[in-house]
């Protein structure tokens, strides 16, 4: 059940005239009115100690008043308190006591905070308000589908202002309702209901959750808006959904759920995974990451990456001109994150615990030692050398008969655990009264080392406190504080050597735990198990705070002034330690293992780095929200915001430690030659003026305009300021009378937007000529200070501009069974900041700054379909699918002169690689002579397409590909099923039209470089198998290999991203425990995938371009969550 506080407060229909009649008890009236306005609750559930003998109720009340803070209110004319009672209690709930006292009376009561209102039960109308009212009063109770009472539901006589709100028990009384009238019941997140009164005096209503959420409110940046009146391309995700994922990072759970958002987990070790997020594709050659705004403040990506998903209420993606309100930094799209806040009601305590087992989704299928030996022999044979291994030796590798001398070491198996563990625990308390609302949460995450006997870990502790206080009816203040500690320990692991590790070398001397030399100490088993080999410990602290206040300016209805001041602080203390480790030689004559210092380091060395960053953001907003004549809704504001950041760096190091016992600087050498220190600082500043006006006519004709003027320190003073407008409009056709006849169409809206957004995400001060210390040089044995110019200045540098247009249709049909959102969009990014390194000759010596060159266009389509319904009476389900097509095209960019047409980036997507196209393998000398070949190539090497047909294979034959590593098509499908106490959630993610670099870019040259993917020798060229599909081994540097189509694969995939099966323990079993809800579940992440990289053992989301990939994880998770 979704509740929304702001909605409850904004709709308050007071039966004012009637109440004014109650002059007698004016004081009480105010109180009652107040009670009516707010949803009622009592948080101080006090225990009462009381002993009276044959006293009147009045006396009892007085005694309770003396004993406690409670105060009783009643109307002497209506209630008879003369009844005599005898009570004796040591320790009773007040409510329990009152229930007893009133047991045989015609009295009842209501509690609100410490006020107790006593009223008569049996009189018509029941309470003080209705006591004076006329006939036609209607009472009733509103519940949800579980039968739970719903407080705060708005009940209005249709077409009037006569209305009320249900109380804590879900009960309402409405007076003076015409017999032929209609009652409207509404609540945010629930489908509104209309009930004809038809003379009834009691109407009970059950509200059901809105399937699409007609009344859903979405965050739109500096405010919220009803979803039905939204005119931009905005998608909001409630983290209840995202939280179903056991992935430690929020963003990983988001994959496949939001149309227009491309999310790829690029893999990584615990605490250091990389997730790539692009909104509507890449649109600049530089950083295409969106802006992250957490609780109204732009906070960096790391902040999001490590946010506790349990703290997050919703996540909203602004994809079009709606992002223009963030002007200068909005061009890559904006992601708004809203954390949870307290709601009026008794405290809700939630606790959850998850234990996950994870493992890499794939392991590369590497060559065995026999395959390796054969490849080596082949290289020798091609070069006319004797074979390295005899057939007998290869046989020994293959059959494992001599594991000491002829092992087949599977380094992945030696290094990686089958399953590693992660734990997540969370606790939160939320609740509040109309004065103060609170959400307090704490979380703990631990991920253990993926390696056998590994020492690394990733721990995270976080705490959050969001408080809202109503100081006066016109003034509300919020204080949000959050803190996070990261404690990460990771080894100096040379990941490529897990891949490259020679299979014919043992990791340990057989039967011992003595490390072998492996390859002059590059023994990855040692690296992953011995902390002394080298580690990095990261101790990071993040503190964010914001203080905001909203003041409704008296005298002008709807005018308010709001301000926020946010202060964020983060620090990072990093220690890099390298110690001395030992590998062992085996003396065959004596049978002894002789330790030998690993050449990695001869002396313990420690480097420490300390960074602290401070960010201050302040904004002030004057807002006006008003409805005129019931139909003209205006919501407007003007605002100013500024931000300053300051970062300090400090680092120091020492080597030549006498002992490795203490890993602190003081323990290092006193010799100044082996001590280092450094420090610097960095500042940024921004100033922004902005405003927005939203207008709608009866939710039918919708209009929004925003304008922002931003100043960025990144540019020279005359290039610094920019205007960023955004305009959008919508038309809700279903509000038109001519559409009313279409009963199957519940909702239909068309909308359009246009905006100009900016991007200044480049290095600061590129407009200045400046110098920095560096490039020191040694004269006479001592270091002489150097000074270098920091690049060539570009005084003209200014914003990237994105001009974005969006056309959307939203529809819901058949009572919400089917929902559909379609968007067509086009974004033209111009003034792209890039360096002209393709066309500026090196002989100029210019170290190029970013310049405003280049234009890129993104065009595409987004489609979201939802379906909700029932199968039989027992199974409820909801389905949602989304599909996004993005065509990214470079319109203008710095191109290398004299390029062939097929090499140009223009017309192709950003990042489309330039590759030699492999069309086969040269069979033999005759084949080699029959087609142009790359200089030095022989039989068994790549046959490369002579693209320009000039008889020579050189870089002019490289062809710009039509696709890049960023997919053109992404899609997702989520489904939820409920059957009695069971829930099943499945979410799929997929992409297509994407290229991935599927193999590491190391030369395929086994003896020199190390192991290789076994796929390379399956049907590989040999002297016998000349009609092969793979090249011969022994490929060196510089020749076409890593830059060929051979390493590229179609990266299309569909994968079961998240799955969860949950069981809600029946309430009947929980009734005595005090637990209101208990959910146990098993969930999974990256459970399976359909793709074309299985034969390589490579995950399709990984891009090997930068070396050997660390695969993303598959996670199986067991969890339990409790609500008290």
């Amino acid at each position: 059940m979704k509740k929304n506080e702001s909605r409850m407060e904004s709709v308050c229909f007071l039966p004012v005239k009637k109440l004014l009649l109650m002059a007698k008890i004016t004081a009480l009236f105010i109180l009652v009115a107040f009670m009516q306005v707010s949803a009622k609750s009592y948080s101080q559930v006090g225990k009462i100690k009381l002993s009276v003998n044959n006293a009147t109720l009045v006396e009892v009340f007085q005694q309770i008043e003396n004993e406690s803070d409670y105060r009783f209110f009643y109307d002497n004319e209506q209630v008879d308190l003369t009844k005599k009672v005898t009570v004796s209690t040591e320790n009773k709930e007040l409510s329990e006591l009152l229930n007893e006292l009133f047991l045989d009376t015609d009295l009842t009561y209501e509690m609100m905070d410490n006020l107790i209102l006593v009223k008569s039960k049996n009189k018509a109308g029941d309470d003080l308000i209705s006591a004076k009212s006329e006939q036609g009063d209607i009472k009733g109770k509103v519940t949800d589908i579980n039968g739970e009472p719903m407080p705060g539901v708005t009940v209005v006589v249709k077409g009037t202002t006569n209305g009320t709100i249900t109380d804590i028990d879900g009960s309402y009384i409405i007076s003076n309702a015409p017999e032929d009238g209609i009652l409207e019941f509404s609540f945010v997140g629930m489908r509104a209901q209309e009930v004809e009164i038809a003379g009834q005096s009691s109407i009970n209503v059950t509200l059901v959750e809105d399937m699409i959420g007609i009344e859903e409110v979405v965050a739109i940046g500096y405010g919220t808006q009803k979803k039905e009146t939204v005119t931009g391309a905005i998608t909001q995700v409630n983290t209840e959904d995202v939280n179903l994922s056991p992935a430690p990072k929020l963003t990983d759970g988001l994959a496949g759920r939001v149309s227009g958002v491309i999310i790829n987990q690029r893999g990584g070790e615990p605490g250091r995974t990389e997730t790539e997020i692009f909104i509507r594709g890449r649109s600049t050659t530089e950083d295409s990451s969106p802006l992250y705004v957490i609780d109204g403040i732009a906070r960096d990506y790391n902040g999001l990456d490590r946010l506790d998903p349990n703290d997050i209420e919703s996540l909203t993606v602004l994809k079009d001109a709606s992002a223009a309100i963030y002007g200068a930094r909005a061009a890559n799209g904006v992601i708004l994150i809203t954390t949870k806040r307290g709601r009026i009601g008794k405290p809700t305590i939630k606790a959850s615990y998850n234990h996950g087992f994870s493992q890499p989704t794939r392991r590369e299928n590497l060559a065995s030692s026999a395959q390796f030996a054969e490849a080596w022999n082949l290289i020798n044979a091609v070069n006319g050398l004797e074979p390295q291994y005899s057939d007998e030796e290869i046989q020994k590798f293959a059959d494992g008969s001599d594991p000491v001398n002829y092992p087949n070491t599977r380094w992945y198996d030696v290094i990686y655990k089958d399953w590693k563990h992660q734990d997540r625990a969370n606790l939160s308390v939320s609740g509040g009264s109309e004065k103060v609302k609170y959400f307090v949460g704490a979380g703990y995450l631990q991920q253990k080392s993926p390696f056998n006997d590994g020492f690394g870990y990733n721990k995270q502790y976080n705490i959050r406190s969001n408080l809202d206080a109503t100081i006066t009816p016109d003034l509300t203040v919020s204080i949000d504080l959050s803190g996070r500690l990261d404690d990460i320990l990771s080894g100096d692991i040379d990941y490529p050597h897990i891949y490259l590790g020679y299979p014919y070398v043992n990791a340990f001397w057989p039967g011992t735990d003595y490390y072998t030399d492996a390859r002059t100490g590059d023994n990855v088993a040692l690296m992953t198990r011995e902390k002394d080999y080298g580690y990095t410990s990261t101790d990071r602290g993040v503190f964010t705070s914001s203080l905001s206040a909203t003041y409704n300016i008296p005298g002008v209805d709807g005018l308010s002034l709001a301000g926020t001041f946010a202060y964020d602080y983060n620090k990072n203390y990093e220690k890099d330690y390298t110690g001395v480790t030992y590998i062992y030689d085996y003396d065959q004559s004596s049978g002894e293992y002789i330790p030998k210092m690993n050449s990695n380091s001869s002396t313990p060395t420690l480097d420490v780095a300390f960074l602290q960053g401070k960010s201050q953001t302040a904004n002030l907003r004057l807002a006006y929200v008003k409805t005129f004549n019931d139909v003209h809704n205006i919501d407007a504001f003007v605002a100013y915001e500024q931000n300053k950041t300051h970062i300090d760096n400090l680092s120091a190091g020492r080597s030549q430690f006498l002992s490795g016992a203490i890993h602190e600087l003081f323990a290092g050498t006193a010799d100044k030659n082996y001590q280092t220190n450094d420090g610097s600082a960095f500042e940024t500043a921004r100033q922004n003026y902005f405003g927005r006006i939203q207008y709608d006519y009866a939710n039918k004709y919708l209009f929004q305009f925003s304008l922002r003027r931003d100043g960025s320190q990144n540019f020279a003073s005359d290039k610094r300021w920019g205007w960023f407008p955004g305009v959008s409009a919508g038309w809700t056709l279903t509000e038109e009378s001519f559409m009313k006849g279409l009963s199957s169409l519940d909702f239909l809206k068309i909308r359009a937007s246009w905006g100009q957004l900016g991007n200044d995400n480049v290095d600061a001060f590129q407009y200045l000529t400046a110098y920095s210390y560096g490039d020191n040089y040694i004269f006479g044995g001592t270091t002489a200070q150097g000074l270098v110019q920091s690049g060539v200045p570009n005084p003209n540098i200014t914003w990237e501009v994105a001009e974005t247009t969006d056309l959307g249709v939203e529809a819901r049909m058949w009572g919400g069974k089917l929902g559909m959102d379609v968007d067509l969009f086009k974004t033209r990014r111009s003034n792209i900041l890039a360096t002209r390194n393709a066309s500026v000759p090196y002989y100029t010596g210019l170290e190029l700054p970013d310049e405003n060159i280049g234009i890129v266009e993104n065009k595409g389509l987004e489609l979201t379909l939802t379906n909700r319904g029932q199968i039989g009476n027992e199974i409820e389900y909801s389905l949602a699918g989304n599909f996004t097509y993005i065509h990214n095209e470079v319109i203008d960019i710095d191109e290398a002169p004299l390029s062939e047409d097929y090499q140009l980036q223009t017309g192709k997507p950003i990042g489309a690689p330039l590759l030699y196209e492999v069309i086969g393998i040269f069979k033999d000398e005759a084949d080699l002579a029959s087609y142009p070949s790359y200089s030095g190539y022989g039989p068994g090497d790549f046959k490369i397409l002579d693209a320009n047909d000039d008889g020579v294979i050189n870089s002019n034959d490289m062809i710009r590909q039509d696709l890049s590593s960023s997919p053109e098509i992404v899609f997702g499908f989520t489904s939820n099923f409920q059957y009695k106490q069971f829930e099943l959630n499945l979410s799929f993610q997929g992409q297509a039209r994407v290229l991935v670099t599927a193999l590491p870019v190391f030369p395929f040259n086994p003896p020199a470089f190390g192991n290789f993917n076994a796929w390379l020798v399956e049907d590989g060229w040999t002297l016998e198998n000349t009609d092969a599909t793979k090249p011969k081994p022994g490929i060196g540097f510089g020749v076409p290999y890593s830059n060929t189509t051979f390493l590229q694969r179609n990266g299309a995939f569909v994968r079961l991203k998240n799955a969860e099966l949950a069981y809600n323990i029946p309430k009947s079993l929980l009734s005595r425990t005090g637990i209101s809800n208990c959910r146990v579940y098993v969930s999974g992440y990256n459970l399976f995938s359909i793709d074309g990289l299985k034969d390589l053992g490579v995950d399709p989301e990984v891009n090997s371009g930068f070396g050997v990939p660390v695969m993303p994880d598959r996670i199986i998770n067991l969890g339990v969550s409790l609500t008290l």
Partner: protein
Amino acid sequence: MKKIILFLLTSIILFACNDDMLELTPLDRISESAVWNDENLLQAYVNAQYNVIQDGFTNNLMYYSDEAYSQFDPSSAFGFRNNTLTADNVENLYTTLNFWETGYSYLYNLNQFFVNIEESAISDDAKTSLIAEMRFLRAYIYTTLLNSYGGVPIIDKVFDLSEELTGVTRNSYDEVLQYIIDDLDYVIQTLPAKQTGSDAGKASGDVAQAMKSRLLLYDARALHNPTDDVTKWQAASDAAAELLDAGYSLYPDYGTLFFSDGNSEIIWQRYYSPEIGHSFTFQSSAPLHGGWGLFDPTQNLVDDYEMSNGEMPYLEDGSVNPESGYDPDQFWVDRDPRFYELVTYPGFVFQGKETVYYKGLYTQDFTQTGYYNHKFLDPSYVIANTGNFTTPWIHYRLAEIYLNYAEAQYHLGNEDLARQYVNMVRARESVDMPPIDETGDELLAKIYHERRIELVYEGHRYFDIRTTKMAPETQSEPLIGNIDATETDEEYVYQRQTLLPGNWDDKFYYTPIPYSEIKRSNGSLEQNPGW
């Protein structure tokens, strides 16, 4: 309450009304105006430019000729022998040979200096001295470019982003040579002959003279002097002669010469410190001594070491020289003493540990040639991959000048003088090889041979074989190793086999300009022939 609100709002507005908040200055940088009027900062600017100088510890030119081999194909060294070097991948070569981008980016800094220094407020003396240092570095840059590419564009301006940047053409070899000589002559006249103390390692008159000596020697050789113009040899001789009696003397010990700081033979060396060190010592040490075992001397090189009696171990036809006393099974016995300072051999001891050769369980870092390098290795270091070895790199030393002088004198017809200077090198106390007495072509061959042995691994061979036009012959020889790869017993078995084929193409005299640069110039740069 209202007062509090008013106060809060007012403070926010006051905080906001800071017009200058976007006028930030970098906190990690220094402004332009400060630099050009401060002698200390200008000196620092000049200091940084010294990093343009390449040395053999990071540019291992021994791989590119016939001195050393590593199966890891360092910086595409194999490209010269298996023909895979092209204008597209030339950027994989070590910087010394692929100096285009590095050289011109430093030239930008130098030109920036020359433009700004005129207006600088610093003293004239300081100005003159700094200009001379920068002109030395300019000479270094053009010399390196000239050696690699032949004539290159002379850039003497600071390009502006807004101007036309393409269309520059190459200057001729002679124009560039003259430009360098002018700079070096200025330096020789301006800077002190020697730099000492905390200035040791800086540009000096003698360093410029040594650079000029090598440059003019190359210029007089066959590649640049097809008509054998004697005036070129005279110039080369004159340049070398300036240093013969300039206070330098041969250091007695050929082994420790390379790590005895600032010894009498060194004209110019590059210093290192623990903070800015190199890792050559680690990389080249044998695996059993804790290193990576790179830079393995080839059999081609090992065979070229004379016996201690001055005889070559092998005759031209490949048979053992009967007069040499050479025993192929004990090839390490009675060789030129310099042999023992270059290679490891059975019974070789380093840091108290005997180098062991056997394939055993691991093969990867074990030598593919049968030898490990020993030159430049200072036994006082603990061998580990710490990258802070401080053995200095010697750019110029007297023995080279002697050999430069000998070669020039030979071409000037003074064979006695030529033999005299070669024999002075051979007579070094710890070397003490018998004097040579060859004449005519044989003498020239001996001079070349002496360079090969005396200056081995010091970055000369690659250029010597090109400028003398020996390369078609020497590079056509396959690279030979001496190892039986199939043997797995503890006993190491020597057996010759080819590691890389011989290969020569006349285009190899110069490296190609990167093809991408030809494109950037929009075709105005002319590619070297054959590429």
